[in-house]
């Protein structure tokens, strides 16, 4: 990752190399000179017995490809495989090709823990790209800490965690919430908010932060309602009636999974059309992936607060979307988490090269300060607290299932997993 121009060139070549079958010859032509395998004796760069040979390094991919979460996690698996292929086409890491062992977490948290232990203890993988739900991360966390593994976790999540064995490539709650609330207040003049969400830790923590911000940091603003529904809930008529009664300026929705489909359809059926902005619908839980289930026409006009949208118009992203579609099919969509998952292998590569070693302790030490100029979302940087500095963006849902980006923060937003004044 030197400067932007040369990286783009390398990326362009790598895509063709992927298509051409990624021959070693093509790759080696473009491999930076200082990163040939023979320059790094395996014994020196791997002192802890990880799965590193003279020409390969093995990592793990641990997501659900079966069960209820498969629909969400498949995008992450695809993104990680794409990143691995591209890195290999560039010559790999320290001259070593990445090989991966994929395990299925099966949407089941004990299985995640079992497979994590298998990857770390049996397979000795050098790092793991994986997990999606907080529950699965919580299940594997003790395993990673005990066996000193290194996990790249892609999902936006509730924060309140900072493990030395995890790099969080998604945004923690404050990064996703605060800028969006300020935006809707300043540009739309919104003063009253109705918070609702699915009933588990992420929506609850997110709404807690939203409420504190609205009540303590936004002038004359108030929360007029806050409600939670079980996962999989499909009857939102009572809350929609309350919303009509209390007339909030903003419906702040953190509904997840299949419930989204019912929620947006019922909202529309009840005559609340997001395109009319009375009230404004603002969500942090609907990416392009979810819109495929909801239907663009049902959610059109709603706003979502994310760090990445497929429609971002920068060179990195255009190249990324193209490569992604070439690998996985033309009609695929890319959501926020998929992009964050794509960052995992690249961030790990950069950290390993900075450390000059695959040893987890050295990679951990090297990780803070790692920059990625080639990220589809733009420039990102790893913070001391293992989360990423990244921008917050607001997009408006379109009938075709894509978001139109209407706002982005001028600066990168600092990650703050334990926000003071928001507890």
């Amino acid at each position, binding site marked *: 990752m030197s400067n932007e121009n040369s990286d783009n060139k390398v990326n362009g070549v790598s895509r063709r190399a992927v298509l051409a079958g990624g021959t070693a010859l093509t790759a080696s032509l473009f491999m930076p000179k200082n990163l040939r395998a023979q320059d790094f004796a395996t014994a020196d760069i791997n002192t802890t017995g990880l799965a590193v040979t003279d020409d390969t390094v093995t990592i793990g991919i641990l997501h659900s490809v079966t069960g209820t979460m498969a629909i969400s996690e498949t995008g992450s698996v695809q993104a990680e495989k794409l990143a691995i292929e591209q890195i290999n086409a560039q010559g790999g890491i320290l001259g070593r090709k990445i090989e991966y062992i994929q395990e*299925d977490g*099966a949407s089941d948290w*004990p299985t995640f823990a079992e497979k994590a232990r298998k990857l770390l203890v049996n397979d000795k993988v050098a790092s793991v790209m994986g997990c999606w739900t*907080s*529950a699965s991360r919580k299940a594997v966390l003790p395993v990673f800490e005990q066996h000193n593994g290194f996990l790249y976790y892609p999902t936006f999540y509730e924060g*309140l965690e900072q493990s030395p064995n995890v790099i969080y490539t998604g945004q923690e709650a404050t990064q996703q919430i605060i800028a969006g609330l300020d935006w809707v207040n300043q540009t739309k003049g919104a003063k009253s908010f109705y918070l609702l969400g699915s009933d588990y830790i992420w929506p609850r923590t997110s709404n807690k932060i939203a409420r504190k911000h609205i009540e303590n940091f936004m002038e004359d603003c108030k929360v007029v309602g806050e409600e939670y529904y079980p996962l999989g809930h499909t009857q939102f008529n009572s809350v929609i009636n309350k919303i009509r009664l209390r007339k909030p300026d903003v419906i702040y929705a953190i509904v997840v999974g299949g419930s989204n489909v019912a929620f947006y359809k019922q909202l529309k059926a009840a005559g609340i059309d997001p395109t009319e902005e009375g009230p404004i619908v603002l969500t942090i839980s609907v990416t392009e992936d979810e819109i495929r289930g909801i239907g663009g026409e049902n959610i059109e006009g709603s706003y979502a607060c994310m760090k990445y949208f497929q429609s971002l118009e920068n060179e990195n992203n255009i190249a990324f979307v193209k490569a992604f579609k070439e690998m996985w099919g033309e009609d695929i969509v890319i959501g926020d988490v998929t992009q964050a998952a794509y960052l995992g292998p690249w961030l790990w590569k950069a950290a390993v090269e900075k450390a000059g070693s695959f040893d987890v302790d050295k990679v951990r030490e090297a990780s803070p300060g790692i920059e990625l100029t080639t990220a589809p979302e733009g420039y990102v940087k790893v913070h001391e607290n293992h989360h990423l500095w990244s921008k917050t963006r607001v997009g408006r849902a379109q009938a075709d299932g894509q978001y139109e980006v209407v706002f982005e923060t001028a600066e990168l937003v600092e990650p703050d997993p334990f926000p003071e004044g928001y507890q």
Partner: protein
Amino acid sequence: MQSSAFMSRKEIIGFAILAALIFLVLPAVLDNFRLNLFGKYLTYAFVAVGLALCWGAGGILSLGQGVFFGLGGYCMAMFLKLEASTPENTAIQSTPGIPDFMDWNQLTELPWWWEPFYSLPLALLAVVAVPVMFAFVIGVAMFTRRVGGVYFAIITQAFAAIMTILIIGQQGYTGGVNGITDLRTLMGWDIRTDEAKTILYFVNGALLFAVLLIAQYVRKSKLGRLLIAMRDQEDRVRFSGYNVANFKIFIFCLGAAFAGIGGAMFTLQVGFMSPTLVGIVPSIEMVIFCAVGGRLSILGAVYGALLVNWAKTSLSESFPELWLLGLGGLFIAVVMFFPNGLAGVWSEKIEPRLLALFSKKKPDTSAPDGAPAE
């Protein structure tokens, strides 16, 4: 056949083979990681043995055994969580000294019903007592009203669903979807190390044998014979003057106690407890373990739990995207071709041939004994 004795010779051999497998063969051939996995599988065997008694002998099909497994597991997890949540470990929280998930849910003090779980003896008692009490309430409500068969199965399944919803909904008190995670020590003993996992495996194996011996005793007692009589002709037993409901309640509570112990061992070996182990799907899986092993045989139930879980692990490692189909195929094949499960295969196919081979006389086809053919 000496049916009045505690064990026939064949059963002694069966127990000895299983003991050799669990205590000698598996520890000798498996590395630490795989041994721990088999330890986890064996915790399901507790439930399967209980089911072999309730369902196989007593004819009571419960699709809610996950509830008891989960209650036992949660009782253990609550103790471990309190031990892990010292004020020093949780200094970063708004209220140090309470479990982290309570803090995230804006609780500022420990709920009163968590207090007993500071004590290990009380927690261990609760591991058995809470599932039993729960089973007793369900049992009294159902069996004294003569609810049985399919209706009972459906109601237990509903309990599994209710329990999951309750745990997820009350996340401030239960940890919600995430469950109770990040468990570290048991009375200062780190349960996460390889050494601890090996010790726990053997403790688990010993407890399983204790449970198996109790189950064997019940089966051979007058109670066991009454159960089978009830399964086959409930009214006749009732007309003979027995209170059928009481026997059913007892065996159902016994199954719940077994499941609770299994759940507690699961928590200790896996390091967390979550509502995914309480709901309908795991409850049905537990019935599958029992069916594959042979619901008439308590030893078969153990093998069923081991085989199905081992297949689950190895199929999903080799075929991460197709393994569920393989597992489904295995289950269908067993049910279609071997309706009495592995134990049936053993007693009907393998054992007679072995006998023929060794004794060089005609196999005694009249009493295949792997399953209690009373």
